[in-house]
């Protein structure tokens, strides 16, 4: 579904990605793990067009997307849950969700989806008139994921959904990610520092270090891999 070939991305003169190649098949949950500054978020930014790569190719369903602007990429069906949630703080929960459906024209479909979201996260239904900024961190993360789902994406990019959340909440979020994947057949690309949880929920995983992919395997194999365990699982 999504194919990255030898991506090189720069911030000014600093090279953040030194030739990243990966492949995500339809219906999969794929995770990208690695230490701070490895280039995980940059990879995601390259895919969604916020920091376009200087060389290499990104193909989504056979179509080259590395020269498109971020909004065109969203229109193709790739939605992003940005790092740090990025809720619109003064818009209400319902309005936040509505913003997620910004590019859609089918009002009934949007309503249906909003009801689906409220079933998925009853707490959001309760707080739909509340300003987004007044939610707790976990609720905001749920809202951020819901907002991305409102675009009816075929592929969901998640950037560190566990950031700054309590362990119990993180667990719940990961359950939901799984649920979204099985219920809607949404392909999910998950960038995460919490390698243990990410690998448990994902089908396959890539390990990143210094702007390069150093390992890729089935998630289960990575969980039991000695090097990965030592470096990222702290065992």
């Amino acid at each position, binding site marked *: 579904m999504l194919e990255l070939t030898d991506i090189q991305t720069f911030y000014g003169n600093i090279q953040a990605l030194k030739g990243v190649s990966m492949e995500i098949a339809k219906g999969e949950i794929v995770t990208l793990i690695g230490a701070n500054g490895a280039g995980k978020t940059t990879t995601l930014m390259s895919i969604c067009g916020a920091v376009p790569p200087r060389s290499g190719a990104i193909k989504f369903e056979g179509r080259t997307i590395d020269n498109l602007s971020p909004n065109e990429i969203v229109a193709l069906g790739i939605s992003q849950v940005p790092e740090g949630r990025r809720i619109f703080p003064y818009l209400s929960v319902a309005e936040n969700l509505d913003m997620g459906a910004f590019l859609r024209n089918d009002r009934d479909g949007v309503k249906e989806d909003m009801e689906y979201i409220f079933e998925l996260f009853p707490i959001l239904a309760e707080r*739909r*008139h509340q300003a987004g900024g007044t939610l707790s961190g976990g609720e905001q993360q749920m809202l951020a994921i819901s907002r991305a789902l409102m675009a009816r994406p075929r592929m969901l990019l998640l950037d560190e959904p566990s950031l700054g959340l309590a362990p119990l909440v993180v667990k719940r979020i990961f359950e939901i990610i799984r649920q979204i994947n099985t219920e809607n057949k949404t392909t999910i690309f998950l960038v995460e520092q919490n390698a243990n949880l990410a690998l448990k929920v994902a089908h396959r995983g890539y390990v990143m270090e210094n702007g390069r992919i150093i390992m890729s395997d089935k998630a289960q194999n990575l969980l039991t891999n000695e090097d990965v365990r030592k470096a990222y699982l702290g065992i």
Partner: protein
Amino acid sequence: MMTFQEIKKSFLAAIWFMFLTFPIMVIKVNTIEKTIEWHWWRMAAVGLGAFGLSFLWRYLIRRKEAGKRKAEVGGEDKQTLVQRLLSNPRFYLPGLIATAVMVVAFPFVFSLYQTNIMITALIYVVVGLGLNIVVGLAGLLDLGYVAFYAVGAYSYALLNVHFGVSFWMALPIGAALAFLFGILLGFPVLRLRGDYLAIVTLGFGEIIRLVLENWNEFSFGPSGIANIPKPGLFGIDLNLQQSTTFIYFLMIALALMTIFVVRRLQDSRIGRAWIALREDEVACQAMGIDKTRTKLSAFALGATWAGMGGVVFAAKTTFINPTSFTIWESIIILCVVVLGGMGSIVGVIIGAMILILLPEYLRAFSEYRMLIFGVILVLMMVFRPGGIISDVRRTYKFEGLGNKTENKSQ
């Protein structure tokens, strides 16, 4: 409930003020008799005044904090009296009719001078609503807004001088040119945000003014352009009184149109994009909003209203020169928006009325005008940081979304 602590603080403030103003208030040198006169009673006056003001200040601050706490506990009880009145149909309709009657009767009841001031205020309403799109909705701080006002005014003046273009032709042309300038200036500028954007727009505003001032062959330089014709009415000859009344009603129509269009824009898809952009740019991008286009549209549409305001301004004063388009003008328009309430249409209208009419009626105290102006602005920012009528959107958000969810359950 006035605690000892507060009395002590006010007392200290009074002492400090007496000390500070001692040299200028108490000592007076009589240069003729070469003696020093001591005005001790003035010191007492300063002390008492400072004590009183400080006390009042503390009292108001405390009341404000108490109100805030109450609002937090009460939740939805945040609507102010004005907003409640506005949303209540029993007051709303008669209020609207009364306003309409007053508006229509105004030029016939009041003098030419009053009508003229009102026209100026209405121009600021239109221009303020335009800036409200840029600053209030899209959250782009534009300090060079007056440049578009100048573009409008000069396009009418110059087209009239060179080609004899009439007011009615110039109005859409001026608006279109301002729109074009909005896009032209917008392109390089809109990569920036916040303070940087403000400074660069400030620079652009000054560039336009300096070009107009120095390019004599093009704009007749500092001497400006005189004898710009007033708007015509099917070729009928109007005397001064009549033509002023005509411009007044023209401005009323333009203001109504502006209000209508801005309201529609606010509720449209692009309006939602502007509001979202004001809140979080990164999130906007993730939602699939085209950042550049959204910003440019806000900038250019805002400029369009300034252009129209400029054309009317040129027609009203019949004389323009670059000194009408200084940075000070930009700041006044910005004050109209901020004082009235960013993002709120009613707020901007009231803000324009206060800021333009008040200085006119305060001419009697012309020396203290700027002082009063400054004091009002500071007090506003302390006690009502959201403006006189803060963003009405916030109130109808509750009802509006309630309706939306009701629809859904049906």
